[in-house]
């Protein structure tokens, strides 16, 4: 099987690749977003804690 045949998907390329594309975007988005949120929470709590102690 050649590479172009692979991407052609027997004529169903538009359906197969858009399905996989949407899947990938949702999966990545869903994994990255909570990581960013957790880091933000950790940073915010650290800032608040430093503020409590007079900005040390």
């Amino acid at each position, binding site marked *: *099987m050649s590479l172009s045949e*692979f991407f052609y*998907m*027997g*004529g*169903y390329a538009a*359906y*197969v690749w*858009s*399905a*996989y594309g*949407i*899947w990938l975007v*949702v*999966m990545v988005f*869903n*994994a990255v977003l*909570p*990581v960013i*949120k*957790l880091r933000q*929470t*950790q940073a915010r*709590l*650290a800032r*608040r*804690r430093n503020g409590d102690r007079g900005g040390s």
Partner: protein
Amino acid sequence: MWTYFHRLGSAPHFYRFSGRLVPWLGWICAGLIAAGLYGGLVLAPPDYQQGESYRIIYIHVPSAWMSLFIYVVMAAAAAVGLIWRIKVAEIVAISSAPVGASFTFIALVTGSLWGKPMWGTYWVWDARLTSELILLFLYLGIIGLYTAIEDRRTASRAISVLAIVGVVNIPIIHYSVEWWNTLHQGPTVAKFGAPSIHLSMLLPLLVMAAGFKLYYLSVMLIHSRNEMLERERNSAWVRELVDAR
């Protein structure tokens, strides 16, 4: 054994334990999904009726399985949280909702993209599709209700009731293809007797399903850790944690 579960139920221990667990789960999950994609897109032969279009199955079916599985886990955690007032269970319940909603969304969208070339339409109001759409609305309703209530413990009680009532939809989705004989095909794998699918096609599907399970577990744990910090931000262990950094 019981002390082990008891410790896992305590917030600081759960936070530390999941923090160590998530990277491992993440890498195993990435490996499984990569193997599943290779097996499904490259190694598996084309279908004798549907040609190459059937390859959407490798994301569609595991996503649909996960949409039901996560809902059941969420409702069970909600029930545990409601009955025994266990904080970790409440947190697991709400942290499952966004992952469940996205898998439901993926199942609907990929199913639609599969339906167009095979059925000639993106959407029909068939029993399976309609009940899965209701599942998406249940997930979104749970997330919306949770964010609408300021106090997190009150919010948890409210979404627990909604999640438990919504369980009625799960058997409807599962049996919809048998109760109402419409466009959506019946089960291929999860039925009595041998699955009507060849091993070279089935194996990548199961590998993908395992990868999706680990994905859910790791993303749900990251959500839980964030939720736990937010809820416990005034407690001693969070202060110690922040000071240690």
